[in-house]
């Protein structure tokens, strides 16, 4: 079913996990010796960044499936995956800027590889929607968008690699301590936040797909009952279409 019990259960599980994760971050995880209370931003910023980047790769994988099978549903999945990852990307940039301001006294630092590489990935994907919108023919739009999603998706792991290889480690490193690794209580809180964020992504992904499928079905039904005049011209859109 579209808005079925499984989606409701998933949404409930997401709400519980995200709330638990944030509660653990504030009340269970110890205060960071170096950054103090401001390090709590880590529990929302980093999971969001990881899930956003994974979402871009996920969109690329869906696009591979679309090119392999030619089925529009894979294009829809890829589109929604990238769309949601972009929304999370906005959150990552905003929370990252807030953390930078609190930590370094500046909203943005151009010589910081983590920030700049994420911005490059974000701006790359910001071209995805305009690219789709610029192509009127639905089949061509879906194919070109899939090629874009695959190439850009392959570029995303380079983001991690570039940051790891960069020498200027100015970005707050909270994954590693002098003893090596995150303290267990911090690690647990972080993992729960990460799982919560991943569940939120999956829930919203399924929700948006269900919504778009409902929209397509309603349109098809309207056409069936009232003919083409009842539906009207859909016009140019960046969103994929399941109907021919």
């Amino acid at each position, binding site marked *: 079913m579209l808005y079925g019990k499984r989606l409701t259960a998933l949404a409930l599980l997401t709400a519980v996990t995200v709330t638990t994760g944030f509660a653990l971050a504030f009340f269970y995880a110890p205060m960071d010796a170096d950054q103090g*209370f*401001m390090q709590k931003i880590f529990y929302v910023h980093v999971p969001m960044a990881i899930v956003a980047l994974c979402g871009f790769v996920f969109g690329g994988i869906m696009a591979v499936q679309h090119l392999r099978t030619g089925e529009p549903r894979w294009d829809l999945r890829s589109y929604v995956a990238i769309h949601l990852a972009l*929304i999370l990307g906005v*959150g990552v940039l*905003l929370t990252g800027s*807030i*953390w930078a301001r609190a930590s370094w006294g500046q909203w943005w630092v151009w010589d910081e590889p983590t920030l700049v590489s994420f911005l490059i990935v974000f701006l790359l994907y910001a071209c995805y929607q305009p690219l789709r919108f610029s192509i009127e023919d639905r089949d061509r739009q879906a194919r070109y968008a899939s090629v874009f999603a695959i190439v850009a998706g392959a570029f995303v792991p380079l983001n991690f690699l570039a940051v790891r290889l960069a020498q200027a480690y100015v970005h707050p490193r909270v994954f590693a301590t002098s003893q090596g690794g995150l303290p267990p209580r911090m690690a647990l809180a972080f993992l729960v936040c990460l799982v919560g964020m991943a569940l939120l992504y999956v829930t919203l992904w399924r929700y948006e797909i269900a919504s778009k499928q409902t929209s397509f079905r309603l349109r098809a039904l*309207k056409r069936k009952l009232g003919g083409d005049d009842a539906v009207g011209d859909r016009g140019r859109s960046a969103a994929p279409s399941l109907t021919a």
Partner: protein
Amino acid sequence: MTPALPDNVGYVAAAYLVFLALVLVYVVIMASRLARHQRELLELEELADRTVRGGREREPV
């Protein structure tokens, strides 16, 4: 005596509010889409009623 708030509480609150605001805006947009679906469903019901009535009227007596 109330305990003092930790340093940088404003920045931390702002970061979590950004996350909350993003989710809320998304949910509001999805809710508006749901409302549109419900409107379209009503239109379809009316259209189906008209089609059924039109079919009956055309049936030979």
